[in-house]
């Protein structure tokens, strides 16, 4: 074991965590924003938008990866536009890791945010308005605190999913050690090369990380539930 650890290149751990954090931040704000947007649209458009935003969750990640590859390939309009005008390359780069992880994990944030918002009693918002509060204050002081447990657990789930993303990442970002090789990608390629020791090491790392995540969800939601009476047992 010691020999394995000594020979380990730690870069996949940092790439994974960095990717997870950036993808989660993107998904957190966009998820909240789009959840509100979908809630405010009319029924037919609502189901269409909801379908689009949830699709990455149900699609096989390789399919999502393939679609992203089509979108960002430098031989395609968007990819070419980004590369020529801004010198941004998504395919086979770390940015690709982030986009792949974001695309796959975003629906978790979006759905959790929507669920959390839709549980809020609309009378609370009306009460805020009749009491003379601004919409800004209502959002920050009433809506966000009430939705906090749901938003936080959505955020943690998003981070977990982004951290473990494999299918779309290999399609879009590839498997370049020190650049785009995340833990999940490492496990697959080490196992394929017969290096079960290294693969096993990364498996242990992922199991520990995942366990910490589950415990923190329980902690966050449990804490948020303290102020209301809910079904417990």
């Amino acid at each position: 074991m010691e020999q394995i650890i000594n020979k380990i290149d730690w870069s996949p751990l940092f790439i994974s965590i960095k990717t997870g954090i950036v993808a989660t931040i993107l998904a957190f704000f966009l998820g909240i924003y789009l959840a509100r947007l979908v809630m405010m649209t009319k029924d037919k458009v609502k189901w269409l938008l909801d379908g689009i935003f949830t699709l990455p969750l149900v699609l096989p990640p390789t399919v999502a990866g393939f679609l992203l590859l089509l979108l960002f390939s430098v031989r395609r309009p968007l990819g070419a536009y980004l590369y020529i005008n801004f010198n941004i390359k998504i395919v086979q780069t770390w940015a690709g890791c982030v986009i792949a992880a974001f695309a796959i994990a975003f629906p978790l944030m979006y759905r959790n945010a929507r669920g959390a918002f839709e549980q809020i009693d609309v009378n609370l918002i009306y009460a805020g308005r009749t009491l003379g509060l601004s919409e800004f204050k209502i959002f920050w002081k009433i809506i966000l605190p009430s939705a906090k447990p749901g938003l936080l657990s959505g955020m943690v789930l998003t981070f977990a999913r982004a951290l473990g993303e494999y299918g779309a990442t290999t399609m879009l970002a590839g498997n370049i050690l020190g650049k785009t090789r995340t833990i999940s990608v490492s496990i697959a390629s080490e196992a394929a090369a017969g290096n079960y020791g290294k693969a096993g090491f990364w498996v242990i790392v992922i199991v520990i990380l995942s366990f910490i995540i589950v415990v923190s969800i329980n902690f966050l939601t449990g804490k948020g539930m303290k102020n209301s009476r809910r079904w417990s047992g």
Partner: protein
Amino acid sequence: MTLEVSIKKRLKGFSLETEFQANGEYMGILGASGSGKSMTLRCIAGIEKPSSGKIVLNGRTLFDSEEKINIAPRNRKVGYLFQNYALFPTMRVKDNIKIAIGKKNADKQKVIRNLIERLQLDGLEERYPCELSGGQQQRVALARILANEPDVILLDEPFSALDSYLKEVLQKEVLEILKDYHGEVLMVSHSRDELYRFCEKLTVLGHGQQLLTGATKQIFKNPVKYQVCKLTGCKNVSKIKKISSHTLYAEDWKIVLKTELEISERIQYVGIRAHDLVPWNGERERENVFPVNYFSSVYTPFEIEFIVKKAGEEQGEEIWWKISQQSFFQIYSEETLPEYMSMPKQFLMLLE
């Protein structure tokens, strides 16, 4: 202090149309569920937008469809007591009150302390809404509204979620609390008892249409219209045929009745409250006296309700007679029921 409301709103299945004025007195809106009474309050508060009409509060136009005025709820100075109180669940009692205090009010702590004392919330300042009883929640909701110093307070079925004992205690409390409040109070309810106790003036809504507006006591005494009579809780109403200026035939009951008031051409029904029927032991050939057959009886804690029909008229409609147990058992028993009943002239309500 005046509130003028004259609005129309299209709703599912019917259209709400209401017009009334309140001038500093407690005003009530009576109506069955789904009659549009809560919607009226929501329009005044600005939570819903009327299809057309006008709402003016103390000379300030809150809504005017012609002038295209529609003031945002937060600038209306309208306090709304929600049926479920809508306290902010993540805030402590004191913060629920604090957030409602206007910006101009410098000494927020003093306002909070005053309200806590006035509404008997001492010791509950640090609690969360879910740690309070229903009555306490209602008081916090009222404190929060008073902290905002609105020009009018709207009470939306304030007591309907409470059990009957608590209801009476709270009605008294709320009246006590609002005694020092000098704005308008408008209350909506389906309970005639609540409104009778609370409001000097009443508007009656039936399926979106405004049926009657006036002094509460007057409306209960003379409901004028069939629907109003039913909504004020009268169980006995019969269709009539006019015989002469002061005589009518109650078709549903099969009884000829003399009236005190002249029967105009518009009168189509006659009504009498169940407790206004009088058992009759005197001379039988008197006006408005008729023999009865008994069908069933219902006991409430202090009263008895009998369902009777005119004897020999089995096709006739049921007539309800209500009497306190005390007076009933002084004279009668279940074996010796009065054989004749009278509908005294002065209690007959002539209805359109």
